[in-house]
């Protein structure tokens, strides 16, 4: 446990790096000549840039595995097809009722024109 990620030496290292980065950030943010050199505005954050690029290129890392395919089928294909089939069944039943004369004139669908 002396060298693990939760050891005292690891915590000290992380704290030292974090303090150095914080110092550097304050120096750059309060640098009055940063605008003059052409680089002004928000300080470029590589971690943020990596996150944004990751989100922009997520499709490049998609692979059609069984799990991914199952998820796609369940969440995309099944609802669309299922809803379409339900709707068709409903409509066919109602049309059958109409064509065999089981729907009264007073219960017709379009009454108001």
């Amino acid at each position: 446990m002396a060298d693990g990620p939760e050891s005292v030496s690891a915590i000290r290292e992380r704290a030292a790096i974090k303090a150095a980065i914080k110092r550097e950030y304050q120096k750059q943010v309060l640098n009055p000549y940063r605008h003059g050199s052409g680089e002004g505005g928000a300080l470029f954050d590589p971690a943020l840039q990596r996150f944004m690029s990751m989100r922009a290129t997520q499709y490049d890392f998609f692979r059609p595995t069984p799990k991914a395919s199952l998820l796609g089928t369940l969440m995309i294909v099944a609802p669309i097809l299922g809803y379409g089939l339900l709707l068709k069944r409903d409509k066919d039943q109602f049309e059958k009722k109409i064509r065999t004369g089981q729907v009264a004139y007073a219960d017709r669908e379009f009454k108001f024109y």
Partner: protein
Amino acid sequence: MARLVRLVDTSRRISGLPGVLISRSAGNWNKDWKPGPYPVNPEDRAAVARKYGLRPDEYKPIPDDGLGVGDYPDLPLVTAESRDPYYPWDHPEHRRDFMEPIHAEYDMYGLDRVNASQKLRFSVTQQFLAFMGVMTFFVGTYYLMESRKIHWPLLPKQYPGDGKVHYTFEKPE
């Protein structure tokens, strides 16, 4: 890309800070900053961990199960709301420091969105059971008593109709 690397090396020597990247924003393309392929060798893992600013023993890539994102790290989730409000963050509106590695679903866990890493007073199971209990009581009562309604003790209204006799005017005995 070569100029960027040389600029990085120069800035590193100047500031004496390993791992800090100070680059000009002269075009940051997605192809330069996107995650690499999923790391399979241990040597790759050490280099990739360094790239993301993590220690090699605390770097764990998101599993490559078809829905993964290459070598982007699987960071422990600490939402913005769960973080210390009194610490001097570099970006207080996100409760995040400069160059801190960002969780893969960071936009979902900001201060104005869901707080998934909080310690709930009632667990989700308890909440669900309480909801189902209350709804079962209401729905069950309706279902059982709908056919057993209680009415006011009223007789039907006596309207005059053809041939109907409601009252014969006989003398009381």
